[in-house]
Each structure stands twice: as C-alpha cells, then as structure tokens.
C-alpha cells in the first residue's frame, strides 16, 4: 500500500500565491511515501514545502522552473508499476493522447504522468494509463483561463492502483476515484 502524490503546474509566485488552504490542510507529512511533480513549481520554496510532506520527491523540468537542474523526463518503479514523468510542453500537440502514448512507449512505463495543460485527465490505452493531475493551485494556462485546482493521489497495491482525484470546485474539495489494474506480467488473462 504505497501512496504516491502527483501534482504540478503550481506557478508560484507568478500566477498563484500558494496552494489552496483546503489542499494544504490535507497534505500532512507522514502519510505519503512518494511525490512526483510534473514541474513548473516554480521556486525553491515550493520545492522545500513539498520536501516537508515527503522526503522522496521526484521533479521534472517545466518551462518556467527557475531551477535548471531538473531533468526533462524521469522514470521510477514503485511496486509493480513503472511510472514515467514529463512536464508535457515538449509533447506536441499539447495534451494529445496519441503523442503522449508515443512518449509512454519511448519511456516504457505503465503510468505516464504529465502536466502543462492545467486540466485533469486520465486516459487509458492499450499498455498503460496517462494521467494529468492538472494544476494544484488553479493557475491559468496559455490555453485556459478558468482552471480548477486539482491533484492526484495514487494508492499502489500490488497489481492494482487506485487513483484518487482531488478537485476544488466552487470552494469545496471533491474526491473521485479511478481503479486501474495492470495485466499480470504472465500472458494469460486474469
């Protein structure tokens, strides 16, 4: 039972001041084992804040990040799942499923997490899942002014991952759940 927090596109301080207080009250240290961040934090203070929630932090570079040392893509293995991480501004057209699927095959991962569109999506195609956690602060994007703050928490348990989507709609936190089971590595169908 591994809890992985996926968030990104905070754009602090340029486009937003901070995470919404309701989100901040939920993100307490000690519960989450890993954090994967799609980028565009943009400043070190946010990096430090995320580090206090969980020491295992993985970040990739967004186009507005002030720290140039983050890599463009990252892959990591958690439990039985391979996760891939990329900001998404490199993948054109932005947010397009087929192009992202191409990136997923390139990185050879089961779950690809990207951002940049500031819009939560979760797609499934043969071979894997593409998740976009949206913007955790609700910052505007180049294509969308009206953004609901959102982030994603994944509960990885064996061959099954439960994706909890947290969205702030009209001042209230709404939580949705998505179930995804990976086909076992053996060829026979379950």
């Amino acid at each position, binding site marked *: 039972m591994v809890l992985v927090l996926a968030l990104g596109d905070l754009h602090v301080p340029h486009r937003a001041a901070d995470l919404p207080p309701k989100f901040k009250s*939920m993100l307490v240290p000690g*519960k989450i084992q890993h954090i994967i961040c799609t980028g565009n934090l943009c400043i070190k203070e946010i990096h430090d804040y995320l580090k206090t929630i969980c020491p295992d932090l993985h970040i990739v570079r967004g186009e507005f990040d002030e720290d140039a040392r983050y890599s463009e893509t990252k892959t990591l293995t958690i439990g039985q799942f391979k996760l891939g991480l990329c900001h998404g501004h490199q993948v054109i057209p932005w947010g397009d499923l087929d192009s992202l699927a191409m990136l997923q095959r390139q990185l050879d991962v089961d779950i690809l997490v990207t951002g940049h569109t500031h819009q939560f999506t*979760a797609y*499934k195609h043969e071979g894997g899942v593409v998740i976009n956690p949206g913007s955790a602060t609700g910052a505007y994007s180049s294509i969308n002014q009206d953004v609901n703050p959102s982030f994603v*928490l994944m509960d990885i348990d064996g061959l099954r991952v439960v994706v*909890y989507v947290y969205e702030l709609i009209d001042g209230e936190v709404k*939580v949705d*759940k998505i179930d*995804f089971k990976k086909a076992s590595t053996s060829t026979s169908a379950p």
Partner: protein
Amino acid sequence: MAKKGIPEWLNSSLWSSSPSPIPDDRPLRHTPPAATTTVAPSPPIVEHPSLSPSPSTAPAPIRPPSNSKSENNDLPNGSGGIDVTPPTAAEDVSRKTQVVAELSKKVIDLKELRKIASQGLPDDAAIRSLVWKLLLGYLSPDRSLWSSEFAKKRSQYKQFKDELLMNPSEVTRKMEKSKGGASNDPKLQAPGALSRSEITHEDHPLSLGTTSLWNNFFKDTEVLEQIDRDVLRTHPDMHFFSGDSAVAKSNQDALKNVLTIFAKLNPGIRYVQGMNEILAPIFYIFKNDPDKGNAAYAEADAFFCFVELMSGFRDNFCQQLDNSVVGIRYTITRLSMLLKHHDEELWRHLEVTTKINPQFYAFRWITLLLTQEFNFVESLHIWDTLLSDPEGPQETLLRICCAMLILVRRRLLAGDFTSNLKLLQNYPPTNISHMLYVADKLRSK
C-alpha cells in the same frame, strides 16, 4: 521504561557462592523445589555445579526436566545439616507427580492445582504451559471441553487478525468485492477516458474525518511504532526474543501482533510501555511447549491469556486512574501500609528517615509484575506463585514486594537515601523460593 537493571556480572555464579547478606533474620528455611534451577546465593543449598550453565547467564530454552532430575539424584544431599529439611530428590519427584496426577484427571480441581502450583511448578515446559492456561482461565477444568475451546478461541484470534491488521486499501478492495463491483479486467476497458466514480469524502487517503478508515489507520500508526520499538527492546539478552535470527523475528512479529490487536480492541488504554514485558513470559512459555500443535498456536493462546492477566492489572496502566482508588498510586500506598503493618521499623526508616518515596522502586515492581527485577527463569517461578495464589495476583504481588523489602532490611536500615534507592532499584539476586515463603507468611489471617 528502563531496561532490566541487573547487570550481567551481578548474576554470575561468582556472587551466588558468597554467603547471603541476611544471616539471622530469616526464619526456618523453606524447602525449595529443587527441580528448579535456582540461582541460590546461599551456601546451605546443595551446589549444583553440573547445572552451571545457569539461568544467570542468558537463559537457554528450558532444560528438559529429566536432566535435572538425574543430576539431583547424583549429588549428595545437604551439606552438613544446616537446614531442617534439605532438598531431596524424592520431594521434587513427588511434587512433579502430584502436578501430573492432578493434570491427568478428567475434571481438574482448580483449588488443588492452585495449592500445588503456588509452591512452584517443576521446570517442565509442557506442564507450565498447561498449568498457566488453566490458572488464567483460558481452559476450563473439564478436559473434554479442551479441544473445542482451543478451536473456538484460536479461530476467534484469526478473525481478529484478519479484521484488525489489514490496511485500508485491502479493506476497500474487500468491500468492493463483496458489493460485486464491475470486473476490472483490463481487456474489457476500452481505450479512451477512464471512468470516474464519485466517492464520499470519508473514503480517501487524505481524509481527516473521524470515521474515515484511512485517518484511523494513520492515527494507529503512532501506536504501532511505539509497539515496534518496545518489542525490539524486550529481553535483548535472549535469543528467543532478540537478534537477527528468523526465529527471533517471527517471535517479535507475534508479540507485535498480539499487542497491536490488544491496543485496537481496547481503545481505552491502547498500548502502554511495559505491556510487552508482561506478554513476554506468557508467549515464551507457550511457544516452548513441546507439543508442536500447541506451540504453533502460541500466539493465539498468549493473546487470550494476556488479556486475562491484564484484566486484573489494566488499571495500573491507565493514566487517568493514577490518582484514583484503583490506580497505581493507591496500590503503592497499600504496599506501604502492608510494610508498616509487618515491619514498622523498616517502614519508618524508609519513608520517614530516608524519605524514599515508594514510587521510586515499587512502580516498576508492580506494573511489570517483577519481570524486570529478577532474571527470566526466576521471574517464571515468581509468576507460578503469582498466578496460582487463590487470593489473586494483585494481593500476592503486594505480599511478594513486601517480602522483598523485609529480606533486605539489614542493608536498608543501615543505608541512607542513595544507597537504599540503589539497592531497591537493582534488587540483589536472592533465593526465590525463600522469598516466596516469606511472602506466604505475610498472608493476613
């Protein structure tokens, strides 16, 4: 909680050969059950040199009784008639046969068993395991009911484990399965947007709600961490409990499970440091039962016996009750009164002259049931008496503590605050059976 205070060297055989420091006060010496491998500091007792991988060093698993019996038979009895009744091999054999005879009856007479047990049980693992189960009320005296009782209790424990030791994701998965959720076969899920299902605010991992599974799980984690730390510190000198072997690890896991389930089932007192020390001897005895069937279920049996034992002593662990009539402070006051009743001079010296607050030493004696004051094997003997006395463990414990104080009265009366406190917090090794005899004499008529 301080670890066991008696350092290794104090327990070595070097000390046991020197004369005991309390020459004249002791009344007629009681016949110790010589089947027990007592760490006897006093010379009159027959030295058992061949038994010298003595319990004072890290106690190995209980020696099979046949060895000690034959060795007793070989050694000369008594060394120059100092005592009235030197231990004879015949007596131990008779005690053992008494116990065995009682145990083999169809319906066991608990009163009779208690009488025999309070004088000390032979060092036979099977006997002690069975007798403790009977004394703690885990098994009824009627032998024919045993198999059904075992089965019922053990399956109940398994149920507890399944329910309480699961983490929330497993729980939610089970709940969905039982609701007959749509199959998650990935082949059936068409590519495209994944379906989202709305859930209530309580069910998610970051929930802060009081009824949330997840929130309670994370709150419990603190208790679990505390239990984990204490289990790792239990009896670090014994291979059974500590070290890197697979055996030690599985024993530690069993202890952890029992304590966790107890904490979850008793939200009133949860887990308090020290409960691990009370559980350790129980689990040790049951796990070392030569009957493999029983040893395999040692965890379940130990859980119920631990619950039974704790039911008498739980008030000692509840902080809110500290100052109340049933709490630990009052119990310590009762010990003080008992000492005053039996030995006013000593009481006055301790409380008034040297101003030693009995809490400084008695707290650990009482809450941990004397497991930390003596080595492991000795504390097993003490527990035989503690569990079997018809007056009940609480009363017996106070009498034994009083006896402990009276036995070192010479040194206490001669000492000041510092030396007395040092003495009482590191109680010197003594003849356990003698101590129990003195405690018995303190029984109020």
